[in-house]
């Protein structure tokens, strides 16, 4: 089983080439502020921000299979912390405070939601974001008598972009590490079957909370970095629940089985949202819903799955032409297959009950 010298040399060459290619790519992206117009740069900021959010979301949800709708909670906490503190401390200090608040919130939420699974966790995440928003509104109205904050700092678009890009590089690096480490393997196993994960010796609650905090810290930081982008911030803007949904849909559209999968969802959806928001500003939510239905019905593994299938199809040896009947037969076979409907909330509830009241045959 040991590697030969030839194998090692080849592997080393591959590593060198891929590091060089990635450095070039990141270098080119980092040069964007000098190459692009103001409009182009603001588009890139939007996109890199969603890259960080989606990949960070996938760190937690892609491995543990718990769908989190708490993205906007952490994003908002990051953004609003900066907005509240910008008048009393330097900008980088507000980033540090935002990071600490985000991590602390993730710790509390993680510990509280340990025993919650499936649908209940999804709803909890959504509720958390709304609750923090309402609390912030209440605080601002009753205690500070302000409804919104001005963020005026010398932190221009180019700076925001470079910082977000750095964050994206770090989050990708962590994702890469997770795919070849003990901790990452443990997380995958937790996502598959918690009982088995415990039975190989994994501390399941600890692992879940840890990755939740890591993921939340990145989301909080990108919210903090985005704060100087907007001159005026109010709670309803910072804790916009749409962010949570957009991130989930981007991640599912791209596919979670590869580290770069989410990119294939982020890029097309950011471009489309840009076009739709300039041309038909009210159509974006409807469009997002349609994309989600397409994913659920036709693309369960996302665009990545499509590419993988395409690749296997291309690399398969050519079959003899089967004439016109071949494709016709395939279409017929597809049509006559029974349609699989997602089982929806009812399915989740069924599973839940099955856990509480095992069927007699399983008990013994």
């Amino acid at each position, binding site marked *: 089983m040991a590697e030969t010298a030839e194998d090692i040399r080849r592997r080393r060459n591959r590593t060198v080439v891929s590091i060089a290619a990635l450095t070039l790519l990141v270098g080119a992206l980092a040069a964007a502020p000098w190459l692009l117009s103001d409009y182009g740069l603001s588009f890139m900021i939007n996109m890199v921000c969603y890259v960080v959010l989606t990949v960070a979301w996938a760190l937690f949800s892609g491995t543990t299979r718990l769908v989190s709708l708490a993205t906007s909670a952490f994003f908002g906490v990051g953004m609003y912390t900066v907005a509240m503190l910008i008048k009393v401390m330097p900008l980088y200090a507000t980033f540090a405070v935002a990071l600490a608040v985000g991590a602390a919130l993730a710790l509390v939420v993680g510990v509280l939601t340990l025993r919650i699974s499936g649908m209940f966790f999804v709803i909890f995440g959504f509720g958390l974001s709304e609750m923090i928003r309402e609390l912030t509104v209440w605080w601002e109205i009753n205690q500070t008598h302000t409804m919104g904050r001005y963020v005026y700092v010398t932190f221009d678009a180019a700076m925001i972009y470079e910082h977000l890009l750095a964050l994206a590089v770090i989050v990708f690096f962590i994702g890469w590490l997770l795919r*070849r480490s003990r901790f990452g393997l443990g997380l995958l196993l937790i996502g598959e079957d918690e009982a088995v994960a*415990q*039975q190989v010796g994994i501390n399941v609650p600890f692992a879940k909370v840890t990755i939740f905090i890591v993921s939340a810290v990145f989301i909080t930081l990108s919210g903090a970095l985005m704060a100087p982008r907007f001159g005026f911030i109010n709670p309803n803007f910072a804790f916009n629940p749409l962010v949570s949904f957009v991130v989930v849909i981007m991640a599912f559209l791209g596919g979670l089985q590869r580290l770069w999968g989410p990119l294939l969802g982020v890029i097309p959806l950011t471009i489309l949202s840009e076009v739709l928001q300039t041309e038909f500003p009210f159509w974006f939510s409807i469009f997002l819903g349609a994309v989600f239905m397409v994913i659920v019905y036709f693309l369960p593994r996302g665009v990545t799955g499509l590419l993988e299938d395409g690749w296997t199809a291309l690399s398969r040896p050519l079959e003899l032409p089967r004439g016109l009947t071949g494709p016709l037969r395939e279409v017929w076979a597809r049509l006559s297959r029974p349609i699989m409907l997602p089982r929806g909330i009812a399915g989740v509830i069924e599973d839940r009950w099955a856990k509480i009241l095992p069927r007699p045959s399983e008990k*013994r």
Partner: protein
Amino acid sequence: MTKLLEVENLTKAFGGLIAVNGLSFVVSPGEVLGLIGPNGSGKTTLLNLIAGTIRPDAGTIRMDGEDVTHLPNHLRVRKRINRTFQLARAPANMPVIGTVMAGVLYGAGERMRFKDAGYEAAGFLGELNLLTKADRRFDQLTYIEQKRAELARALATRPRVILLDEWLSGLSPSELEGGVSVVWSLAAQGLAVILVEHVLTAVRALCRRVIVMNAGSKIAEGRPDEVLRNAEVVRAYLGDEDA
């Protein structure tokens, strides 16, 4: 004989149902202890208690003299107690070797690098004749292969006590023979094996000592032949003569 696992006065109730009632026994290294009894007699609950899947209401579990009664599941794995599940279970979407690797990395064995764990895991699969199936998904394996894969996962954590929950059930006669020799070799390596089983031929072949449970209590203990002739055991399995 030295004691490895000591169970004392273990009790667990689910609501009003007492699933395990004041059970005590001892297992030594290299011994195969049989645990038999009719359906619902509390055998699987007992295994769950020892593995740490659930906590007892009363009683103690000692491993090598150390009290492990209050340790959670994953820490008992590191105290070198592991088990297989009654319905073999493993992640369906992960190659078989991934689960075994996790066992190597998180178990009680020495710490090693991620890549070396792959070789180590391949070794465990090889011992159970599964090396060629290492990259298959769990649901692509046959029934007997699934059972072996699950055992490989358990062994990868380097247990000294292994709990086999009907690991030999549902096998063809030749598969059963292979399974029995696998259990035999575990005991020969010095593992303490607790075998919950309905297949009495296997119990007779493997165990020098058997515990019979009924309604949560121990009703007999001793050599398989003697115990199975015991009147109370016959009644537990077959009911009263005039019933």
